[in-house]
């Protein structure tokens, strides 16, 4: 069943692109294949299955994030701005879901890296404002580091090789996602499927959970230490850069880019703590990226292109609260869990995290201003996203149970 979660979106992307001239039929086909893929992802069993010698496995945390990715793709198509080409968006979304599902279900780490490389090449070949080289470099470098990590994990005779495997794994995943120090420029005029936000907000969450649950499983104890240390170090770096960059940015695309970075910093620290609470916090943050930050950025994009005067409305305060991770939204539970986990390891780390989290309170108000004067469609979209986020925030145990962190 796990392989069908890969097959249906892939077939949907193919059929959708073949039928793209017949708009309504193409959308229906994309919807049908997307729903079939979602059902396959929901009903897949975690046991390992073998097909033509290849291992397929969908562990519970990966399955949860994969299902949330399907929902995020559905929201992106549903909330697309008026006049947008929904067929192109649906086809890109299904293509992205096929890539995510491949990363999620393939048991062979080299094939996971191959899926990332293929996605990087195809993504960089989409028409966009930035050059091919600029777009392919970070994810392709990430894929190559993942190949190195997989080969070293499978067999190396030296301690240095084992340590390099842990290092290459973390650096490979952060490069593929496009986190600092591999951060790309975010131009709101660029279509979302071709922009770096596709990696930061859509492909990245599953990749990082696969890293934490499956790819890191083969590392030796020595490599495990390097793995955790680099995760926490990169997390702190991204968190600091996100906060600093956010303070220096005007309300615009750059501020959104740094806000993604801030969330990813918390995710990396949470995973690096190697604790149940840390993993739970990271999972909740990833759900928040997929179901709040990414769709909100897509809703704000038309206003970012117009670069109108920033305005804050009453609903904007709720958006700011949700983006900053205030109670009772999903980010609050994640931040509490992360602080609890970090304080058990080292209080200076917990103090740094608390300062970085608080720094995003005023920045989130500036983020909410980027919507300008929202249209009725944007207001509906924002309300829907806030309700979903509120539900996750009020009952985070549901997500934590799904990912095995309760």
């Amino acid at each position: 069943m796990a392989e069908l979660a890969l097959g249906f979106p892939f077939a949907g992307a193919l059929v959708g692109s073949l039928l793209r001239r017949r708009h309504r039929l193409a959308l229906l086909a994309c919807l049908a294949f997307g729903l079939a893929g979602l059902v396959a992802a929901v009903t897949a069993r975690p046991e390992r299955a073998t097909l033509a010698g290849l291992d397929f496995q969908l562990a519970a945390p990966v399955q949860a994030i994969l299902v949330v990715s399907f929902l995020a793709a559905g929201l992106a198509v549903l909330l697309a701005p008026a006049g947008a080409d929904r067929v192109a968006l649906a086809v890109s979304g299904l293509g992205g879901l096929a890539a995510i599902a491949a990363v999620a279900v393939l048991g062979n780490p080299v094939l996971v890296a191959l899926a990332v490389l293929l996605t990087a090449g195809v993504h960089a070949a989409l028409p966009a404002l930035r050059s091919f080289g600029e777009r392919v470099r970070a994810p392709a470098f990430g894929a190559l580091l993942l190949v190195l990590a997989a080969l070293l994990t499978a067999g190396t005779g030296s301690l240095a090789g084992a340590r390099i495997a842990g290092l290459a794994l973390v650096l490979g995943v952060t490069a593929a996602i496009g986190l600092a120090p591999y951060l790309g420029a975010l131009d709101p005029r660029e279509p979302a499927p071709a922009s770096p936000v596709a990696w930061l907000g859509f492909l990245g969450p599953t990749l990082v959970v696969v890293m934490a649950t499956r790819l890191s499983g083969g590392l030796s104890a020595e490599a495990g230490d390097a793995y955790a240390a680099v995760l926490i170090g990169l997390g702190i770096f991204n968190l600091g850069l996100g906060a600093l960059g956010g303070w220096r940015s005007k309300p615009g695309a750059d501020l959104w880019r740094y806000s993604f970075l801030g969330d990813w910093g918390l995710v990396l620290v949470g995973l690096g703590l190697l604790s149940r609470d840390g993993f739970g916090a990271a999972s909740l943050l990833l759900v928040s990226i997929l179901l709040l930050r990414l769709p909100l950025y897509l809703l704000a994009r038309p206003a970012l292109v117009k670069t109108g005067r920033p305005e804050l409305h009453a609903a904007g305060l709720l958006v700011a609260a949700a983006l900053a991770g205030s109670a009772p939204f999903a980010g609050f539970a994640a931040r509490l869990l992360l602080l609890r986990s970090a304080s058990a390891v080292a209080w200076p780390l917990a103090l740094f995290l608390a300062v970085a989290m608080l720094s995003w309170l005023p920045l989130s108000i500036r983020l909410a201003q980027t919507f300008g004067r929202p249209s009725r469609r944007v207001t509906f979209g924002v309300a829907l996203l806030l309700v979903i986020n509120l539900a996750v925030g009020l009952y985070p145990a549901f997500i934590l149970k799904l990912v095995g962190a309760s």
Partner: protein
Amino acid sequence: MTGVLALMGALVAWFGASILVLADARRGFAFGLLLVAAGLSLERLAEGGWQPALLLAAGGLTAALVGFRRTPRQGWGLLGPGSTPRVILCLVFGAGAVWLGTALLTIGSWQGRTAVAAVAALGAARLLTTDDQRAGLTAGAAVALACGLAAGLVNSSEAETAAALAGALAAVTLCAMPSLPEAAGAPSG
């Protein structure tokens, strides 16, 4: 005899990847990719896996032909002005691949590891340093073929064929991507 054939395969794969690094036009790209596929499949064939060898060769051939048709720049484009650093890079990365294959990695045969390391390293060097879309995609296809071979080394022997098929399909897909307008994908020089 088997070891010598596998070594020849690794050498051919390294030479093909070097051509990919040194070329700037469609004949060079296609020939380089063909040599990479031929070298990797010869290495696999020498070790008894004729099915993955066939798939890698067929995938490389198809990818080279598709890429040849998609690349607008005619000719070989080999060893253009200022290519001395690239020649040195090919030699250094070749030596590095031998070291990686013999000293650091332990899975599979040393010839197989060296072939994978040489193609992956040189393909990566080309992919990460060029703004030319066709050069980047062809280098990516070479790395995909190497991944197809490497995935077979990591997994059980039954998975070799499926892994080679995955690598071949990825290589063809990368080479089949349509060309972007010249402004967004100018030659790297």
